[in-house]
């Protein structure tokens, strides 16, 4: 009689949301902060009458608050529709603007060069690949080490005379690894000084990091920084780009000239108020919450790695306190995800089958791992509501699911290939 099998089927079903890197629920305090701007204080911030000015004040308050948290100036905040738009604006806006300057310096055949990592979010990689495909930029993608961390030295060495932008994420969305942004930033500053150049600019996508890491732009030495609401218990559909004063950047959305002309369109007042509140709460609690959640993370990792033929993706220490990413050999992640879904556990996978493009996770592959490892990779991201009981529930049901899928899988690879 198989004792383990019986144990699993007897476990009481629980609902466990472990996909906080995809998005988080909105905090009640955030909802409260947003409410007035839907009906009572509904003015357009561009209007000069009283309702308009009330809305304008709300946006200004949000700007002030976020600027304070980032140790930045109020006029360096550009609100937009989310992380993706913010990344696109940072990249397209600076690259386009640099072309004329580059031609002046290096002749009419000069093409801007951009350095990024091989593990960026699609919101960064896709616009860059498009520009490269069109021949508008030269692109260098820095490979991370097997631990999922990019070496600052490698980034620095890739910088050339025509490099106009370096963009590296603060923390990775799939494997949670934290990149040495401050270190890279320092090297870039030095480079600019030595060469007497304003380039390269340095951008970081901090969407995943905002709940757990320090966002002080002076310490990070970045010129551009991306944030959004949907990952920090704030609203979806609102984002921010920090643009350091004097950065040469052109808008990607034209119209009424809002956001110092950098992003036209009537401000999403409730969204902006919500983003500011969410960021405020997240940053105030981040140290304590990081400590609590890292313990749960390690408990989950330890429990899952007890399963045969499994491994952790990304550095065990240098990762976001809420990120677990484990590969189970010989199984396909989407199938595993759906079995978990049926048991009330909600997570995501780097499997090719689950992606719209049918490509396995470029992040897992960039770690030098096989297609199979990407196929069987599961991402479980913890959040405010996660408890020890949740973690233990997942650890109890996972072995049965993996065993079941292995039973119907024709693949049985050697761990060496893994």
């Amino acid at each position, binding site marked *: 009689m198989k004792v383990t099998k019986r144990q699993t089927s007897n476990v009481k079903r629980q609902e466990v949301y472990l996909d906080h890197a995809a998005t988080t629920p909105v905090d009640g305090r955030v909802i409260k902060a947003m409410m007035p701007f839907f009906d009572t204080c509904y003015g357009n911030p561009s209007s000069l009458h009283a309702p308009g000015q009330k809305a304008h004040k709300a946006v200004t308050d949000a700007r002030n608050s976020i600027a304070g948290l980032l140790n930045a100036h109020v006029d360096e905040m550009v609100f937009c529709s989310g992380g993706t738009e913010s990344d696109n604006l940072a990249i397209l806006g600076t690259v386009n603007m640099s072309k004329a300057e580059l031609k002046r310096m290096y002749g009419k055949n000069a093409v801007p060069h951009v350095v990024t990592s091989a593990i960026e979010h699609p919101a960064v990689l896709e616009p860059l690949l498009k520009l490269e495909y069109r021949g508008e930029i030269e692109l260098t993608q820095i490979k991370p080490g097997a631990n999922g961390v990019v070496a600052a030295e490698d980034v620095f060495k890739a910088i050339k005379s025509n490099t106009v932008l370096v963009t590296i994420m603060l923390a990775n969305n799939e494997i949670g690894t934290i990149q040495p942004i401050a270190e890279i930033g320092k090297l870039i500053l030095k480079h600019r000084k030595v060469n007497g150049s304003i380039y390269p600019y340095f951008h970081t996508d901090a969407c995943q990091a905002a709940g757990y890491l320090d966002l002080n732009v002076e310490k990070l030495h970045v010129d551009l920084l991306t944030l959004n609401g949907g990952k920090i218990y704030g609203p979806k559909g609102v984002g921010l780009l920090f643009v350091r004063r004097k950065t040469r950047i052109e808008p990607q959305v034209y119209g009424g000239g809002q956001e110092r002309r950098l992003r036209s369109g009537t401000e999403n007042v409730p969204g902006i108020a919500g983003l500011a509140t969410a960021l405020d709460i997240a940053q105030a609690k981040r140290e304590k919450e990081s400590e609590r959640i890292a313990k749960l993370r390690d408990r989950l990792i330890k429990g899952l790695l007890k399963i045969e033929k499994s491994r952790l993706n990304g550095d065990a220490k240098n990762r976001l306190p809420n990120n677990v990413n484990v590969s189970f050999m010989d199984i396909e992640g989407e199938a595993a995800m759906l079995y978990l879904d*049926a048991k009330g556990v909600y997570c995501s996978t780097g499997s090719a089958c689950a992606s719209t493009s049918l490509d396995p996770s470029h992040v897992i592959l960039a770690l030098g791992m096989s297609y199979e490892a990407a196929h069987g990779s599961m991402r479980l991201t913890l959040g405010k509501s996660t408890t020890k009981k949740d973690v233990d529930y997942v650890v109890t049901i996972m072995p049965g699911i993996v065993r079941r899928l292995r*039973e*119907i899988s*024709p693949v049985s690879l050697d761990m060496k290939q893994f």
Partner: protein
Amino acid sequence: MNNKKGQKKIDIAPAKNGGSGFYSDVVKEHFFKPKNFMEDESGYKADGQGMVGSPACGDVMRVWIQVDDKSRRIKDLKWKTFGCASAIAATSMMSEMVTEKGGMTLEEARALRPQDITERLHGLPVRKIHCSVLGDKALRAAINDYYRKQGETDKVEVEAGRVIDKVLKITDQDIEEAVLDGAVTLEDVQRKTKVGTGDPSCIPEVEQLIRFYREKYFGAE
């Protein structure tokens, strides 16, 4: 969206509604309780077996058949699949279709189309259509294997593609695969196959093939 009249069209479920609505109940039934999968290979005497892999997402399917030598009907079919819910459900459904009502003849089984499986599954999301293609390919490979073992090599049907890009030796099948894997534009297909980069003169034909296969598998746009 899908016209019921006229030739059979694949019933395509909305691809983006996510969550539990993503797959039909039939798909879920076969996914959570797969039928006829190979539990013990060592104790199974197969008359033919086939294995295929999808270059697209790296999925692998394996099929074993037992054939009645007289009637040439498939008495039993067992399978193993490394793939997503659609792939698992499609192979499971195929195993039922092939063996129900006394079993299909080898020729009937050979004529089984992915569309037939998809229909019985009450549709698959658009980007999952390609998962249903693997099962019947593995089945046809198993049938060939059976004929080979019987020494009836004249009945073996190899599926060779027609070469489109003469420099890179890319066939119409490669383009079909790419479309099944979700490629919509020439650019998408090139990203997967590099077709036309060696021999640009074939590009108009490639574009035509893309339209043809899009139409075939996903219906008119």
